[in-house]
């Protein structure tokens, strides 16, 4: 399954763009997405942390991603 993933903050620098396509084989969980992205972009692992958001909500590791979901990588936030 090919997912489009939005990037913000430093994730945009890491992906060299504001969105990226990710091909997942097998069950498309948040964890599977993270593993795939970290293999492709090892710099993600150097971040203090990062979350995955699905349809504008923070997602859990075991959540399953659907083709039409809006998926985003949320590096450590720093508003205020």
């Amino acid at each position, binding site marked *: 399954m090919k997912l489009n993933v*939005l990037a*913000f*903050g*430093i994730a945009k*620098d890491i992906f060299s763009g504001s969105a990226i396509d990710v091909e997942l084989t097998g069950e498309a969980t948040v964890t599977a997405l993270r593993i795939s992205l970290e293999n492709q972009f090892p710099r993600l692992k*150097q*971040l*203090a942390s990062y979350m995955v*958001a699905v349809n*504008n*909500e*923070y997602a859990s590791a075991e959540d399953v991603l659907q083709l039409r979901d809006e998926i*985003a990588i*949320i*590096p*450590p*936030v*720093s*508003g*205020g």
Partner: protein
Amino acid sequence: MIDIKLTEEPLDISACVEWVMSPECGGIDVFIGTVRNATKGKTVLRLEFEAYEPMALKEMQKIADQTMQKWPVQKILLHHRTGTLAIGEVPVIIAVAAAHRDAAFDACRYIIDTLKQTVPIWKREIFEDGEVWVAAHP
């Protein structure tokens, strides 16, 4: 009542305070974030704020709703700016009105502390010799 805003336009402090004023409230607590000229001794030239807008607005609304449940406050205003801000400019204003001051102080503190943890907004510090996404690395 709750007023949430994310904008590229400068924030208006007096308009924000005026919005939370109400006859049944005896106390207003306001937090104003401003752009500081240095971080760890290094001169900062400007800040750039980026937001994941729909989610940021949703998370800001959640914080305001939670605050209303936790404290007896009448009005909450939460405005945040995006884009490029110069030293001394205002990226965030939080204003809370309550019948009594304890609730206003506690609620205002809770809102800014939670915003910094959960709202998807990112700040990049621009120095003379480089730039860094704040809090990105351990």
